[in-house]
């Protein structure tokens, strides 16, 4: 994924004019990642084509969508809340019954600046069935800049306001100047690694839970199919996959079955597919 300098300049000028927010050079990744879903929605193969179309048609509504996508930039903690409720109330208690070694491995596959993997660890800590268990989270992202932010584990006031219960904040964070720093005991449970989902995965072992939320939307159908197939290969046979609310496996990779859980859904590898998963 690379955005052309011309497209970046157009978006940068647009955002500066409309919101006074300056996208410094080096923010190409941000622009690209925020605009890919809009490009796909509008039927364009990539961001450059989308921006070229925007710059010629100049539809005010479409331009405002771009500005909005680039200016609401805080990721929420416990994003959408339902998946974390499902994780705590249904998935983790179920897995706790079938793991005699009292260890769980979770993969946060597009972890951005770390809110997702840390939310997973805090959810595991709040699950009574996992008291005394070892829960490790591998957090991956394409952007080294995002990974570094995650490793630092330090968040602004605006960032901790997003979706974090006050009790969770005072329990797991401490003030660090104007920011809040997540406790070392939580940090120690998350390992941040660079990974490109479109390439073969490095050896990572098997996962009991995979969060692949709001990321498939960035890819075309063959790439989605390839990613979901390879996720099956790193998933424990009875593992659980979480996707974004607008994403599904149906019609993409039917080796997965959707299991309604609480107010959301999780995906599991179909029984008949579990035996032939290559490793």
């Amino acid at each position, binding site marked *: 994924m690379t955005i052309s300098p011309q497209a970046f300049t157009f978006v940068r000028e647009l955002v500066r004019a409309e919101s006074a927010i300056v996208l410094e050079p080096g923010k190409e990744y941000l622009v690209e990642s925020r605009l890919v879903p809009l490009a796909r929605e509008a039927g364009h193969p990539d961001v450059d084509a989308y921006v070229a179309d925007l710059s010629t048609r100049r539809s005010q509504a479409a331009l405002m969508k771009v500005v909005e996508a680039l200016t*609401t930039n*805080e990721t*929420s903690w*416990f994003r959408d*809340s*339902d998946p*974390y*409720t499902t994780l705590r109330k249904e998935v983790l208690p179920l897995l706790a019954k079938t793991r005699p070694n009292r260890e769980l491995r979770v993969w946060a596959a597009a972890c951005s600046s770390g809110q997702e993997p840390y939310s997973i660890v805090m959810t595991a800590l709040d699950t009574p069935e996992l008291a005394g268990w070892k829960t490790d989270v591998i957090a991956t992202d394409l952007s080294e800049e995002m990974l570094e932010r995650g490793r630092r584990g330090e968040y602004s*006031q*605006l960032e*901790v*306001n*997003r*979706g974090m*219960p*006050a*009790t969770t*904040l*005072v329990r797991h*964070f*401490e*003030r660090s100047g104007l920011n809040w720093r997540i406790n070392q005991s939580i940090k120690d449970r998350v390992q941040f690694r660079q990974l490109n989902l479109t390439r073969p995965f490095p050896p990572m072992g098997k996962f009991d839970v995979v969060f692949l939320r709001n990321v498939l939307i960035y890819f075309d159908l063959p790439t989605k199919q390839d990613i979901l197939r390879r996720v099956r290969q790193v998933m424990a046979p009875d593992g659980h996959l979480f996707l974004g609310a607008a994403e599904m496996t149906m019609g993409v990779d039917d080796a997965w079955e959707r299991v309604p859980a*609480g*107010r959301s859904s999780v995906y599991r590898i179909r029984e008949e597919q579990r035996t032939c998963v290559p490793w």
Partner: protein
Amino acid sequence: MRALVVDDSRAMRRIVGRILGDAGFEVLEAADGQEALDLLAGPGDVPELACVDWNMPVMDGLTFITEVRRHPEWRAITLMMVTTESESDQIVRALAAGAHEYLIKPFTGEAMLEKLDLLGLLPTSTGV
């Protein structure tokens, strides 16, 4: 649903009131804790939510929250402190006094809606 916004800043009451209004609340306003207590004691339904600033003249938000919690007839009110006070021990004090949530200024509209969602006060909420 009804929401009471307690803040000595008219601008802040307007901002919070607009967010809550857009979320479907009927919004009441008070400029300090005492005015808010008087409003609660007066005629009319008890609001489901009160968003309360900490530092106000006459009666501050912490005292207001403590007072509300002393009245069983106001037990159903969900209390959220909305303040610039941002130290851990202040958050702990507010929660101990009876606040259900705590939102630190400045905040975005989404942040406030996410807090309301945590509290189960949006039509789509499940709570956490």
